[in-house]
């Protein structure tokens, strides 16, 4: 597989596994507090995919079109298929997720490249993901 396809594939796998885990939890542990499928949550999933891509896909540049498409489809379709969201929520969540994934990818790569030197090299993806997750949480309430 082309290295630049690792990132969108990682996102699809991360969102799919998360949806499956939530589906199973909701079935077997009714009443459990599950995270809301909102922007910070979507952001966290994007950042997990980006952190996973760092050792696997690095230093390939992402394919922006496929990243956007996978983001829209992944965040729109997968939670809907798992029964976690409704049809009415699927379209806005898909679009928001696709845009968020593109924005976070741009910011993550920019941050990571600047941290990617010396002893911090291995921690650069994790540090960039952590900073962006905090930013997502802080900004989520603006929308």
């Amino acid at each position, binding site marked *: 597989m082309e290295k630049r396809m690792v990132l969108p594939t990682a996102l699809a796998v991360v969102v799919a596994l998360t949806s499956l885990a939530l589906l199973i939890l909701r*079935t077997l542990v009714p009443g459990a507090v599950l995270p809301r499928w909102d922007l910070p949550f979507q952001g966290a999933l994007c950042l997990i995919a980006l952190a996973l891509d760092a050792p696997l896909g690095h230093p390939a540049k992402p394919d922006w079109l496929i990243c956007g498409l996978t983001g829209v489809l992944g965040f729109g379709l997968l939670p809907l298929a798992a029964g976690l969201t409704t049809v009415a929520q699927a379209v806005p969540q898909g679009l928001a997720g696709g845009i968020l994934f593109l924005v976070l990818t741009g910011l993550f790569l920019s941050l990571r490249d600047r941290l990617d030197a010396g002893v911090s090299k291995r921690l650069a993806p994790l540090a960039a993901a952590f900073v962006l997750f905090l930013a997502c949480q802080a900004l989520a309430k603006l929308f």
Partner: protein
Amino acid sequence: MKCRLIPVGVTLLSALVLFGASWGLVGTAQLRREERRAELMALLLPGGAPFTRERLEGPDENITAVYRGTGGFVVETVTEGYGGPITLLTGVEQSGRITGAVVWDMEETWGLGSRALTDPAFLAQAVGRRGELTVGEELDALTGATVTSKALARGLNSAWGYVTGADANTAATEWGG
């Protein structure tokens, strides 16, 4: 070109698998939910089983279901918290004494509002009480989760109001009250 379709293909395949799993688990989910609800109701109103669902009456829109048991009721309420709706089950004796309450469903902020579920101390304050409860008076709010605390208080008051016939929609449970 084919390689570019891999992520889209993985997404669509995953969607199919998830749809199948979701469809296959519908029955189990329903069954587990009913079992869990029955367990909780037996805890909330000790000795109250068996429970029968009552037809909803009254103007209180917070109340979504009422189950009558021996000597009391378990009332399900939905009130708006910080992160979304909070579903609360409250056991109330016919005398109006609250026998227990538990959060059945909620979407609150992790670590703050979600402590309504993981920290039983807040709802334990209501047990044994009669009458309307106000955050800051009868109930100490969850630290950092005042909105959640007030939502829970509204649920408790609605349940108590349903059983006793009192009007629980007073300023004490309104925002900022």
